[in-house]
């Protein structure tokens, strides 16, 4: 058995098998939030989605939003910058927890 078969993305609808209404609400919300120009362009949304896909390490989303980025006019340079934003946020988020560590060190009388 293989995990993360790329063909499974096309079966996304099947998740609604036992809860069609909720799945429809999700897709309506998802398509409105990501798939249409709004205050942000579709390209900006695709770049954000690509960054989030990397943070969440979802192979389906990475495939899908790589294509979405290209089809909305983004180029590999912009896409790479987007994942660096994600990576730097992740690094920063890890490092800011160092303050929690310092607080704990203080409580332990070690700082």
């Amino acid at each position, binding site marked *: 058995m293989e995990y993360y078969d790329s063909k499974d993305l096309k079966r996304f609808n099947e998740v609604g098998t036992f809860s069609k209404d909720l799945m429809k609400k999700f897709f309506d919300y998802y398509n409105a939030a990501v798939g249409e120009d709004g205050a942000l*362009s579709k*390209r900006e949304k695709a770049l954000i989605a690509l960054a989030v896909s990397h943070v969440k390490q979802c192979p389906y989303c990475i495939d899908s939003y790589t*294509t979405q980025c*290209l*089809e*909305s*006019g983004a*180029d*590999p*340079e912009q896409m790479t910058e987007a994942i660096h934003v994600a990576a730097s946020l992740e690094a920063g988020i890890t490092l800011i927890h160092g303050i929690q560590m310092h607080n704990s060190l203080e409580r332990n009388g070690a700082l």
Partner: protein
Amino acid sequence: MSQVTVLKQKDVPLDRTHQEEYNFYKALFEKEIDLPPTKIETLQINITKLCNQTCLHCHVDASPKRKEQMDLESVNRCLEILEANSEIKNLDLTGGAPELNPHFNYLVTEARKLQKHVMVRHNLTVTIDGNPVTGESKKYLPEFYAENQVEVISSLPYYQEYFTDKQRGKGVFEKSIDSILLLNQQGFGKEGTGLELNFVYNPVGAFLPASQQSLEADFKRELHKKYEIEFNNLFVITNMPINRFKQQLKRLGAYDEYMTKLVNAFNPSAAEGVMCRSLISVSHDGRIYDCDFNQMLEMDIITDHEPMTIFNFDYGKLVNRKIMFGSHCYGCTAGSGSSCGGITA
């Protein structure tokens, strides 16, 4: 009622490219769309398959090794057709690099004398590279185009080097920029000159193009910022799943995915505006086709049991013909549509 709507499902014509799973006639049938020719206002001629470039996506399979050239007799016959048919307002020259046909300058100047609007699908780099076989310089082209008030339509896949060189070959972007600057010097693309310079964008790989409007704004902003380049319009076209690009899709294992994407993006409004309704395409050997893609697939227009050519040209028969469709036609009807002049919807 249109010709297609009266057909029963079982009567849907077979796909002309023998790919029933992507039969274009089925889409027309399901949406009750008929697409007869409306008029012939553009004569597009593929006057040579010789090119100084070998682009990844080229549906003509053009390259420096190709030898096909339209001869002088055929060139003169095309001029006779232009003269005799006032409905045909435009001459659209393509290739290969059309400038590499030895009769190119003659054809352009004579067509201009006939008051025809002349468009040239100019790859930009031929001005810098010259003729790859004879070494003849083509540096005169920007001035020649200005003198003859030619509309210059040039492929530029992106406003950055990476995508452009990936699709069109190493060094193409830099040479293209040099060539565009020469055209700008002649007044092309500048307001008030009447000299039109339009660019063509097509995706570098197996994906659909972004919106024409947003890409045009990006191209204008970035090319002006970096190089002070000016141009009129950006035409966005979809890559046709035939010949070299089809082979690339097959190599990537992406052919079916790409075709499914095109089929799912079928847009009836885009279909209404397909270019084959108002254009005919002539090959270097004088045969007439519904479009340049049908030409490359050798889908001859048959009238009176023989292929239509410039030598048995008949406007009435052509405008009353049935356009032949194949699976590749989904490329022209996906999303906002695609034609030699950009989107169709």
